[in-house]
């Protein structure tokens, strides 16, 4: 079924008559899954044990906070989403959910998530969650996204906070390890999104979002992907020498970073003619790999933690 060919006023989803799934979609469940995973790793690798039920509740409230910021983002960006192929079917631009509903849901869930995380864990974790929601909804969505090509770089901080929040749930504070986990996602975000922007060029151009590909051109974007990937390497490998790292993580991170650098280098050496000839195969492959990269690095941290329970792992 397409939106235009089967248009019937009697069956068109009305504002205020959205299904439950539409409200779930407002919370960006796919982004939420990454938030849940990285926050869970932050919580589990922390040196202070947490009661399993408190840990479960904390992760749920962190996910809820992330979902709330997603709803606020969809409310604010409905005009951009409507013109981008990738996002045109989202609940607000497609008319299934009214913008005011998305705003109300986002604000209400933000409040619930922060207060409940405070009650379940501590004020530091709740404060970090509140700042994350503010950063994503206000700093990134309302301010940076439409005003600077560095939107992805600075806005990436919002996605980098979850492991710090997970760590704060367990320890009640911030440490070098949690800052490095933050830095890992922060530095990973630009090459990840710019690889995407290289093969979704028409979308961002049509929407008028000042992505690097639009403002500085595709050659500059390819250079940026390589430079940011090189800057990511010391952060990712450096975690291996901290309290939460160990030989397993170090080996995995060296292998993954080598592969990421090779991928970024391949993106850098190509021009548009070559990229269009194979429908951006390298860019798409690096984008997909970058998702696995983050998942496997955080997975390796979990493995180190699990090994420590058997007297192995760590340094």
């Amino acid at each position, binding site marked *: 079924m397409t939106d235009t060919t089967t248009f019937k006023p009697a*069956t068109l*989803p*009305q504002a205020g*008559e*959205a*299904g*439950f*799934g539409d*409200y*779930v979609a407002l919370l960006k469940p796919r982004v939420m899954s990454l938030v849940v995973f990285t926050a869970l790793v932050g919580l589990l690798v922390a040196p202070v044990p947490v*009661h399993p*039920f*408190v840990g479960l*509740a904390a992760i*749920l409230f962190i996910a809820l906070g992330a979902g709330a910021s997603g709803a606020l983002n969809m409310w604010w960006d409905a005009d951009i989403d409507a013109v981008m192929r990738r996002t045109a079917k989202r609940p607000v631009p497609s008319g299934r959910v009214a913008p005011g509903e998305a705003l109300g849901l986002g604000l209400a869930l933000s409040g619930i998530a922060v207060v*409940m995380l405070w*009650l*379940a864990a501590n004020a530091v974790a709740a404060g970090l969650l509140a700042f994350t929601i503010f950063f994503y909804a206000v700093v990134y969505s309302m301010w940076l996204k439409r005003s600077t090509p560095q939107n992805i770089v600075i806005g990436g901080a919002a996605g980098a906070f979850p492991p710090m929040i997970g760590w704060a749930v367990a320890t009640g504070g911030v440490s070098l390890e949690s800052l490095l986990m933050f830095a890992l996602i922060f530095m990973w975000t630009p090459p990840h999104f710019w690889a995407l922007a290289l093969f979704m060029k028409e979308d961002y151009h049509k929407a008028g979002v000042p992505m690097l590909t639009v403002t500085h051109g595709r050659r500059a974007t390819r250079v940026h992907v390589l430079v940011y990937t090189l800057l990511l390497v010391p952060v990712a490998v450096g975690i291996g020498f901290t309290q939460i790292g160990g030989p397993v993580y170090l080996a995995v991170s060296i292998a993954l970073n080598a592969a990421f650098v090779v991928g970024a280098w391949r993106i850098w050496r190509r021009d548009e003619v070559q990229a269009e000839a194979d429908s951006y195969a390298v860019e798409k492959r690096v984008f997909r790999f970058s998702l696995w990269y983050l998942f496997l690095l955080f997975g390796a941290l979990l493995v180190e933690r699990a090994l420590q329970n058997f007297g192995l792992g760590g340094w």
Partner: protein
Amino acid sequence: MSFPPEHEIFRRRFGRNLGLGLTLAAFVLLVFGLTVVKVTQVGHMLAAEKAATAAGKAP
């Protein structure tokens, strides 16, 4: 404007209400579970404190 009972809007509305109901029930269970855990933890802390105090006062 009235709709026949089998209209899609009723199905959609039922799904939404059911989803909201289950979400609220899960939230209540979560808060109840958290309360039990927190109260139990405080109970353990008080018991440990009491035992330490008693051990300190013992001759």
